[in-house]
């Protein structure tokens, strides 16, 4: 599978470069767009590994929704980013420490469990099917809890950000359609010369 190798290195390179772009871009909006590119090429890597479901989720949820959310945050905050950038050098050592710890964790995991994942006793190779069979049987309870978590997120978002706007002209189509000639039009006979 030479082709797959070439494609792997292509996607991996794009992932690393766009990750660098996220950190290094001068315009924060460009950072978010680099993030979208990183998500996309990671999805490509997932497909190469056979994790189709993860790839689909990455494209659908992360690129479709999370990236947009990031974009809104960047646009809403209106922070002076050049100022922020000058200060961010101070946090560089801490960032390296966090990165090193994560790398060490990944390395440890790879060293101790090479090529071995969570075994669910499912012997089929279809990734999405395996997830479905596990999620809706063995992990039934966490799955239902997930719906409640989503509900909380939904209600929380509405409660925090939504406020009723008074004094705005809103179009109410059913009221418009319910108007009749009788209650909307008034005909008056005006005597000639009397009209104001």
């Amino acid at each position, binding site marked *: 599978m030479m082709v797959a190798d070439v494609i792997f290195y292509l996607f991996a390179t794009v992932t690393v470069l766009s990750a660098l772009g996220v950190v290094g871009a001068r315009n924060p909006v460009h950072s978010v767009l680099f993030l979208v590119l990183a998500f996309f090429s990671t999805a490509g890597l997932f497909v190469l590994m056979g994790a189709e479901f993860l790839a689909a989720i990455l494209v659908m949820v992360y690129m479709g929704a999370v990236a947009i959310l990031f974009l809104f945050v960047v646009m809403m905050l209106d922070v002076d980013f050049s100022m922020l950038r000058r200060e961010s050098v101070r946090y560089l050592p801490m960032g390296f420490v966090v990165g090193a710890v994560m790398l060490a964790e990944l390395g440890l995991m790879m060293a101790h469990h090479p090529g071995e994942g969570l075994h669910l006793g499912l012997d089929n190779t279809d990734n999405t099917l395996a997830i479905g069979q596990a999620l809706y049987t063995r992990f039934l309870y966490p799955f239902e809890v997930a719906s409640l978590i989503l509900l909380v997120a939904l209600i929380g978002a509405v409660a925090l950000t*939504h406020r009723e706007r008074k004094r705005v002209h809103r179009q109410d189509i059913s009221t418009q359609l319910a108007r009749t000639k009788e209650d909307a039009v008034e005909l008056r006979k005006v005597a000639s010369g009397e009209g104001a």
Partner: protein
Amino acid sequence: MLEHYFPILVLLGAALAIGGGAMGFSYLVGPKRPYHEKLDQYECGFAPLGRIRMRFDVRFYLIAIIFIVFDIEAAFLFPWAVAFESIGLIGFIEMMLFLSVLLVGYAYVWKKGALEWE
């Protein structure tokens, strides 16, 4: 499995070639004579009054969050649909339960008027 993705790879290549080609070619061929006014933000004739980045209304954010929640709901539907035959009636009831919980959220959002845009 990977050979199923070959058409997508071809599509990706074509998209990159067309998009990159259009931008790259116009960059190579087009004249470039930039000066300050040309690169400035657009205002109708007068010197720009403020900065170009303006703050967005928080309502965009609300819509995006509502979208994320239902996006994740849709993501849960995929493995359910694929594994539907093997998980049987219990799986069906489970998913209906899941959907009905989120339907409550949907009704709440609708009732609150969060989907309205004045």
